[in-house]
């Protein structure tokens, strides 16, 4: 490997060097500093005689005397099933003191696009045990469903709850003994040590670490490195899912930090910026991460993604949540108001959405009444929410009986359906049961989104409800 000492310019995370051989676009570069340290980087632009290199570990300490050599290949992730249980840094180097990783194969981290013809449409219900998700925004295997949150909100608790509780209810042929557990891939980008500990402790406490692969880029690690961390995580996920048949759940946090790193690189390259200074290609770049979720026809495993992002200023029109929402298959909103009311998890279902819900629920999948119940609760909760503004002005007495029922519905929906705590695991039957309890507080005729037969089956008149509750209490 030829070494050059031809650095002409260092600017932010970028190094420019002269070369006298053709260098491939995206190729990996090694830079040795004067004190013998080695940094890795990637070719961002290659032209006759000159290359622009993006240095993952940052450029501080690099001077014009540093030597540059080209590996002749693009960045690869060594993959093997033995990665399960291992902890790595944001560039894929083990940091857990474990044995050396002997790869089964080395994969290009810029995954190729899945051919839409080869995809299998995701429609297997994942029970997360969280009513606001299972009942109203159902997650399915192979979906990409981000959590839209804000700084200081308990998005990590929610993600951990999902990771702990997620199962796919018993497969028909019963080949899996107890539901199916997920292999969890955790990709951290620029999170604090404290947050990282929160995840690691939970993984260790629940024994999840054994079936996890962790990639850690912390807040004080170089920002540019963050652009490779999710790609390493997803390359590992694809290998485990599509080569080894695992159902993989990928948690990526915090995508906001990832996007900031993109912006930093764009600025250093003096690119024409897009909205709010983020690069114009950020949509494509994010899509190349998020679209790596899915199922493939004829393959056993699946890649399900739960990226977490903190919306700057809680603003969902900010480019990071906005572009994400345009790519992912829905989103779960963690809400500051609900959080301050002590609701756990503080999920605001109204702006939340699971686009793959429709095909993942219903008879034979969850329950025949699921879609109707969810629709009706959305409509009722939205109506109650609207009335809250009005009630502040005119008072409860000025409202009709109908309106008052909707107001009560909205309150009880938050208190009983959403607020379940981070440690409660509810089956889908339980979630829908609570839903029916709440819907039964409304007059039957109001339930215009629910099939009449289902109303007959599940609706309980107020009197029945009380006696039922008593019966339930004694049965306990």
């Amino acid at each position: 490997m030829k070494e050059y000492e031809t650095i002409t310019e260092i600017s932010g995370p970028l190094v420019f060097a002269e070369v006298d051989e053709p260098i491939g676009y995206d190729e990996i570069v090694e830079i040795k500093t004067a004190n013998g340290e080695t940094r890795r980087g990637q070719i961002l632009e290659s032209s006759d005689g000159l290359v622009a290199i993006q240095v993952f570990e940052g450029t501080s300490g690099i001077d014009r005397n540093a030597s540059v050599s080209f590996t002749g290949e693009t960045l690869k992730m060594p993959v093997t099933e033995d990665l399960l249980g291992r902890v790595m840094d944001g560039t894929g180097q083990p940091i857990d003191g474990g044995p050396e990783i002997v790869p089964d194969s080395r994969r290009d981290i810029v995954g190729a696009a899945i051919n839409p013809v080869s995809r299998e449409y995701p429609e297997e219900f994942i029970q997360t045990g969280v009513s606001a998700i299972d009942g109203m925004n159902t997650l399915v295997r192979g979906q990409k469903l981000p959590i839209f949150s804000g700084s200081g909100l308990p998005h990590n608790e929610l993600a951990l709850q999902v990771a702990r509780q997620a199962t796919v209810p018993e497969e028909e042929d019963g080949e899996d003994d107890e539901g199916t557990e997920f292999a969890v891939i955790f990709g951290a980008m620029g999170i604090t040590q404290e947050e990282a500990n929160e995840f690691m402790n939970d993984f260790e406490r629940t024994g999840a670490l054994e079936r996890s692969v962790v990639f850690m880029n912390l807040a004080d690690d170089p920002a540019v490195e963050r652009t490779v961390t999710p790609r390493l995580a997803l390359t590992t996920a694809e290998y485990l899912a599509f080569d080894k048949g695992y159902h993989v759940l990928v948690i990526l946090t915090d995508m906001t930090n990832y996007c900031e790193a993109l912006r930093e690189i764009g600025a250093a390259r003096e690119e024409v910026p897009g909205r709010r200074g983020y690069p114009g290609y950020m949509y494509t770049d994010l899509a190349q991460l998020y679209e790596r979720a899915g199922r493939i026809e004829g393959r056993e495993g699946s890649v399900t993604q739960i990226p977490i992002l903190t919306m700057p200023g809680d603003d969902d029109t900010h480019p990071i949540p906005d572009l994400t929402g345009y790519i992912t298959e829905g989103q779960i909103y963690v809400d500051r108001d609900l959080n301050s009311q002590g609701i756990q998890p503080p999920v605001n279902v109204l702006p939340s959405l699971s686009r793959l819900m429709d095909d993942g629920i219903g008879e034979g999948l969850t329950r025949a009444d699921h879609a109707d119940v969810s629709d009706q609760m959305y409509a009722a909760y939205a109506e109650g929410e609207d009335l809250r503004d009005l009630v502040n002005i005119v008072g409860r007495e000025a409202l009709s009986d109908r309106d008052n029922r909707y107001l009560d519905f909205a309150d009880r929906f938050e208190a009983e359906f959403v607020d379940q705590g981070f440690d409660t695991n509810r089956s889908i039957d339980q979630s829908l049961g609570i839903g029916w309890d709440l819907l039964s507080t409304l007059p039957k005729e109001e339930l215009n989104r629910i099939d009449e037969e289902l109303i007959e089956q599940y609706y309980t008149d107020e009197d029945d409800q009380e006696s039922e509750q008593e019966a339930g209490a004694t049965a306990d």
Partner: protein
Amino acid sequence: MSQTTQETAEDGDGRIASVSGPVVTASGLDARMNDVVYVGEEGLMGEVIEIEGDVTTVQVYEETSGVSPGEPVANTGEPLTVDLGPGMLDAIYDGVQRPLDVLEEKLGSAFLDRGVDAPGIDLEEEWEFHPEVEEGDTIEAGDVIGIVPETVTIDHKVLVPPDFEGGEVVEAHEGSFSVDDPVVELDTGESLTMHQEWPVREARPTVEKRSPRSPLVSGQRILDGLFPIAKGGTAAIPGPFGSGKTVTQHQLAKWADADIVIYVGCGERGNEMTEVIEDFPDLEDPTTGNALMDRTCLIANTSNMPVAARESCVYTGITIAEYYRDMGYDVALMADSTSRWAEAMREISSRLEEMPGEEGYPAYLAARLSQFYERAGLFDNLNGTEGSVSVIGAVSPPGGDFSEPVTQNTLRIVKTFWALDADLAERRHFPSINWNESYSLYRDQLDPWFEGEVSENWPERRQWAIDTLDEEAELQEIVQLVGKDALPDDQQLTLEVARYLREAYLQQNAFHPTDTYCSPQKTFAILGAIRAFNDEAFSALEAGVPVEEITDIEAVPRLNRIGVQEDWEEYVAELESTIESQLREKY
């Protein structure tokens, strides 16, 4: 892109000078603007987009990782073209018309690798050709020379290419042929095949554009009923994420009464294309009863596929649409989303370091958009038939803000505007089309059709609905301040009627097996039932019945269930008379 035009390296080939993402520059390349070139050792397909002195800039339709300066660039000398001929229906292509199923087979992988090419139509497959011309006939550009049953639904009309001189037929062959076999021989010594090529960036010629006069019936109540699009018309659906752009486009692709549907998934989700591939073969065309897939051609450049091919996919789509139009068909093209196409333009433009216009988009954004939508229309074809291309473009404005350049430039061109509304989507009012903001400039010119096919009362009843909804919007402002009970009885009743308009008429569940498609007759009947309730209710009110008693009538909520009724005619008749008798009992 057709493999048939790929040539081996020769003089005039260049060398790569630089690589930066999808943009490659070459030196020593002898090329014209928009020529297709093959880049690097792997022969990645690209298109010339700028020439400056000896430096030729190429946008590459595939990933460029690992490509280095010095590698060869070979020119085909041809612009980006599509292969046209039987076999395009039921197909799924990438943005440069490579069949994705063939790529899967060739690559032996579920992942799209690069450097593989395949013709847009199968060159080996044999088709039954029935000549429509015979010895001695004179034929010219655009003429139909024969018919090939392409799918159960569609007869593929084999046309004389528009740029072909014509001549006298010496022999026409009946039988089974592959697309490149000669099927008609001419006195000029030339022969015609079932296969032609056409450059995607050039509109196929016609005689004249006409003013549209019949609706593209969508089976969606709010569209057909309030904001119809014409066959040959243009429409835009802008909306933030999750507001229903894709579901609306899918609904149109499923139920619109077009002969041919071209669905362009431009920079959107892979699973949405998969959904179409999985669902359409099992769905029946409500007018013909045949599988929907038989009339559908899909073009997929998903968001993670190369960005340059995103720029080309809408052109690939519209060129195929025009080809079927030339056969005399009504073609509907859905592009989801045109914003991704515009962003692809922006990305390439910024890599060229062109002077950016508004929000970084190139200055030619507006021109490109209008050139594209101009290719829609109802046309007199060269061969005397009439065909149409309707174009429906989804727009994805950043932050849902319609004041951005792509939405604004699109609205300047299209005549139908279906404004999606995040508020409605949040409360699961679907389709979330805002009835106050949306419009259709085709409304008046389509009325005669609805009057003839459905009822002469169509315009009047629609106006009543619009007026009632307008009144509701005004009343809602007051209600927000004082509560509903403070309104006089008649206004409270109007609110109640408007609520049924929203719930029973405007809302429509795309996922309900019956409600998903609503014929114009049923659309009209639902409106009629609400109107009947309105009239009876106001009579009762005048007769002194208190408003609460009117709205509490047991039968009224059943208005909301008409949509899901298979036998709606019976149901509506029964419901109308029950409402009438229950109300009349009160006075």
